[in-house]
């Protein structure tokens, strides 16, 4: 809701709560590991539920939460990235091409991590929703599932690292605080925008003064 200042609300409360809860849950799971298996499982279930929810929210949520808002053609993504490094990328109100790609990548990686985690839970602890599928898998199968789970957990962490760097880079290039934006939900309407040459289709004109319904 436009507060009559230069601010415009981009991130709805739900997407913000989702984001930060996910951060907490993911790192809890990552740190607890198998030192605190109950905590790890609980956090893992939380991550899984959050991801599923975000998918639904991405289909039916408000504008900037929707996948349709930030899925771009790979060529657009590539161009954005090359522009970004040259400090020439244009600014997007919601997730830009890179941000949008990262959202998808993270959701996929988290989904693979949590599902493989459930498989490990079933094959090693004989618990969880996948017990009947995985219980008879044998020692080597269980070890393999564990490797898969560890791989995707690590891969997700790698994505998180790139995500954080990307957020910082974008913030610097567009001279705004994107972390704060994900906390308050607000972005400044018009900032020092570097105008890149116009890009082809699937490119949303969202820079100026759009009021986002609450």
């Amino acid at each position: 809701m436009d507060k009559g200042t230069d601010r415009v609300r981009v991130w709805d409360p739900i997407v913000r709560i989702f984001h930060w809860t996910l951060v907490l849950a993911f790192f809890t799971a990552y740190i607890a590991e198998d030192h605190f298996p109950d905590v790890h499982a609980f956090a893992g279930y939380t991550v899984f539920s959050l991801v599923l929810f975000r998918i639904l929210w991405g289909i039916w949520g408000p504008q900037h939460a929707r996948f349709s808002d930030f899925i771009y053609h790979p060529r657009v993504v590539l161009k954005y990235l090359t522009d970004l490094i040259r400090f020439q990328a244009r600014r997007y109100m919601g997730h830009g091409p890179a941000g949008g790609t990262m959202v998808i990548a993270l959701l996929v990686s988290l989904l693979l991590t949590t599902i493989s985690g459930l498989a490990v839970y079933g094959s090693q602890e004989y618990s969880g929703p996948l017990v009947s599928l995985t219980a008879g898998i044998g020692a080597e199968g269980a070890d393999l599932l564990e490797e898969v789970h560890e791989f995707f957990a690590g891969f997700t962490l790698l994505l998180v690292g790139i995500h954080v760097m990307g957020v910082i880079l974008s913030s610097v290039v567009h001279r705004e605080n994107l972390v704060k934006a994900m906390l308050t939900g607000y972005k400044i309407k018009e900032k020092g925008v570097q105008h890149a040459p116009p890009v082809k289709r699937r490119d949303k004109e969202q820079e100026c003064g759009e009021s986002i319904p609450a």
Partner: protein
Amino acid sequence: MKTTVWIGILSGGMLLLTAQFALSRDKEDSMTWNRLARGEAAPGVASVTNKLYEQECGACHFAYQPGLLPAQSWKKTLNNLSDHFGETVELEKGDLAALTEYLTKDSADLSGNKFAISGKIIRSLGDKEIPVRITEVPYIVRQHHELSARHIGKNPDVKSLSNCNACHTHAERGSFREGEVVIPKFDRWED
């Protein structure tokens, strides 16, 4: 004002989650909060509550909690005491019946929904043949699969995998958590 509301909602949510987690761990334990205050995790199996079992069976070996095996296993063992894993055991007349009753009523298949380890033991057995040895239960086998003879069989302070309390420092309490394992001559277990 708005910030306070959000902080309130989030804190409330966190408290609810924590409470739910803590309380869901062991529905039978009314002393959950005391236990948590002492920093103890929920026991994986129900404690041994039968004096006769502790005295007669626990005299020679660790008093294995009944929740570590299904009722069938206990019955098999008690019906075969003349060859009790290589030893002969004789009991007084009434004791055999009393022990059978105790062990079967607190067995894993009847306490699986209240105690995590019991449930995992039963689910890991599936349709497989019921073993008499705890150390042959698939779940138990899997949990110890990273150990080798030097930790167990060739370790004079452990000798056998059936010697639970040699390494599981809180086994008497029914807790077998990895964090509590100290293998004699090897210190705390680290993956």
